């Protein structure tokens, strides 16, 4: 009897092209969009749109201005003066601004460069600072060296004529090697190396899980809405007269929506694996356990909401509210580590947080079943509670007096 309900839902879905696209095509597409955002920008190579003004009137200031203007990661907006830089940042025309206040190669206590940032885009200021340092280090090393020399002399006294001559030669050599595109030699604090990895970016793995659970909720809600629709159409009245009654109806829908969710997640993770190397196959056991638990939890939650509603309108309002709230708090929209601590704690009441955590543990950290047990247990509890609630609420619609 449960199979009969599943067959009815399956045939209905297969003949609804819009629902098919929404259920199976849209989730991988959404994932690709999010993944493209997070793989295209890995942090240190992020471009920044910066308003630039040279108020120094110096040769060093002009050289820095020109170099920044030509730097590939700085989308320079040259402006007249500091006020214009402030306006550009305030109006959002630029992400951040740089004013070359005085000769950057000259010594002295006052900072020759002023970074201006909007509080809403504080990260842009950090990026611009990093790009300026990179430009000075790689293209204008003589500026840094000259400023260092001036500061050294203010501490230890003036160079001797021989030292001055040596220093000038060093300045000239560094300017020439920079002009040839050679890396500066010596004096660097950091050497950087990228570790080769077959793993996808953690953000991509995160968003694979986040988008998966978001769409599991959406498609579950869509599938569960048939419960309300069938009450309106009389199919519910007909089925409750039959031996299985409401229990078979709810269980059949639960089984179908869960199966549909597993297929949906499989397609999304197949794309994630093929395009971004998210490691599904090496962790198939934990992945499938997580997927089934996630699909069951979202299916029963959606069925409970649909059973609670008396009309389709009510079901739609309830479901939209629930899906958006769970997804926002649970980390499907914004990574949870970016949230304040209290919101991260609150997130644990949502299935989204547990699903994302389980996928991260399985696919990124390679956790074993034992490590996933808490998340799987919570999701199974969700599924059981939702299912019992659905059956009880559906029975309420059978007996009216």
């Amino acid at each position, binding site marked *: 009897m449960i199979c009969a309900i599943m*067959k009815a839902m399956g045939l209905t879905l297969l003949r*609804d092209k819009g629902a098919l696209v929404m259920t199976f095509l849209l989730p991988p597409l959404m994932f690709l969009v999010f993944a493209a955002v997070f793989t295209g920008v890995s942090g240190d190579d992020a471009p920044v749109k910066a308003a630039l003004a040279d108020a120094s009137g110096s040769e060093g200031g002009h050289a820095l201005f020109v170099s920044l203007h030509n730097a590939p990661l700085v989308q320079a907006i040259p402006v007249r003066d500091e006020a214009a830089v402030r306006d550009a940042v305030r109006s959002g025309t630029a992400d951040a601004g740089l004013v070359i206040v005085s000769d950057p190669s000259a010594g002295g206590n006052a900072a020759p460069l002023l970074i201006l940032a909007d509080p809403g885009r504080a990260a842009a200021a950090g990026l611009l600072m990093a790009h300026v340092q990179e430009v000075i280090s790689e293209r204008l090393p003589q500026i840094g060296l000259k400023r260092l020399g001036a500061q050294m002399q203010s501490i230890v006294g003036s160079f001797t004529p021989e030292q001055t001559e040596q220093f000038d030669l060093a300045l000239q050599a560094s300017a020439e090697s920079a002009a040839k595109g050679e890396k500066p030699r010596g004096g660097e604090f950091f050497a950087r190396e990228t570790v080769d990895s077959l793993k996808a970016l953690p953000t991509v793995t995160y968003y694979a899980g986040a988008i998966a659970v978001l769409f599991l909720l959406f498609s579950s809600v869509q599938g569960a809405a048939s419960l309300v629709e069938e009450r309106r159409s009389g199919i519910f009245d007909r089925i*409750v007269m*039959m*031996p299985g009654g409401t229990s078979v109806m709810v269980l059949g829908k639960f089984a179908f929506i869960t199966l549909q969710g597993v297929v949906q997640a499989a397609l999304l993770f197949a794309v994630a694996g093929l395009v971004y190397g998210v490691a599904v196959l090496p962790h198939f056991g934990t992945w499938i356990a997580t997927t089934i638990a996630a699909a069951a939890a979202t299916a029963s939650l959606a069925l409970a909401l649909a059973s609670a509603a008396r009309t389709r309108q009510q079901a739609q309002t309830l479901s939209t509210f629930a899906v958006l709230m769970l997804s926002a708090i649970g980390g499907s929209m914004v990574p949870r580590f970016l949230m304040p601590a209290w919101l991260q704690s609150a997130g644990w009441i949502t299935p989204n947080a547990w699903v994302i955590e389980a996928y991260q543990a399985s696919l990124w950290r390679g956790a074993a079943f034992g490590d996933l047990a808490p998340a799987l247990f919570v999701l199974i509890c969700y599924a059981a509670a939702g299912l019992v609630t659905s059956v009880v609420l559906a029975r309420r619609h059978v007996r009216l007096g």
Partner: protein
Amino acid sequence: MTFPAALSRPAARPAPAAARAAPVLEMAHVSASYGTRAVLRDATLAVSAGEITVLLGPNGAGKTTLIRAVCGRLRPDHGTVRVKEHAAHLSTARRRIGLVPQELALYPSLTVRENLDIFARLAGMPRAGIAGRVGAVMEAAGVAAQANERIDRLSGGWKRRANIAAALVGEPALLVLDEPTVGVDRAALAGFADLLRALAAAGLAVLIVTHDLEQAAAVADRVAILVNGHVVLEGPMHDLVARRFGGARRVELRWSHPPDGDTRAHLAALALQSDATGTTFTGGLAAGTGALADLLLTLEQRHAMPREVSVREPDLAALYADVLAEAAR
């Protein structure tokens, strides 16, 4: 229940049985209420195998509540409802009922055959027997030619037939139809009456709730009229009409303006009842006694001839109108 081979063909109205078969549905002195509002009051009704009972009643009379009680979805405050001797709220009783809801209780994007196959499985039929049962039911309901058509692509009449077919797959003893002809065009109605009579002839007890008096008159063996939650009249349709009106003809007289006081008094003396506007008077006049001719002569002499006079044999519509008018008084 098995269907005769040519069930979908028009069947003649069965001859009145000498004695009624044992009732499939027995509703005895049922009272039910929603909160403090009484909806059914001492309602009594019985439907036997092989007969069609039509339940009539104005809006708010309690018809839907009565159906819910029959289907075991409402437990009465008093009285009993039994289907094939099982209390209606038990699943053993519900399994013997084929419900045809007013709405099309079918999956719209599935074919007729797919729908019936699914409802047969839900009815708990053994897998091996489903195809045969679905085929027989489609033949019986006259939708075999539409077996592979999607429900949402069928016309109203075929949809209604498929709706009935879905109620038959579980081999019910009692078929309960709630406004089964909504959306069916006039041309298809005759075929519908034939179908329902054929189902009754095959041994089903049929209970129809409808507002369509013409359709009711075409199929009813028995009629029950529900007013304010009480079954005020129940019995074989022709007996009820004959008993109510005897040999009288239904007479209806219409004026443009209410007639004068003397004329009204004369009409009242003949038991002709006025409507709320005072321009239309209806009632029964004995046939073959010259009563109608005498009335018209009197009206002419009073210069109070009506604008319109109609005389007809009493029928179900007249019976229903008369019962409602009596209840309203």
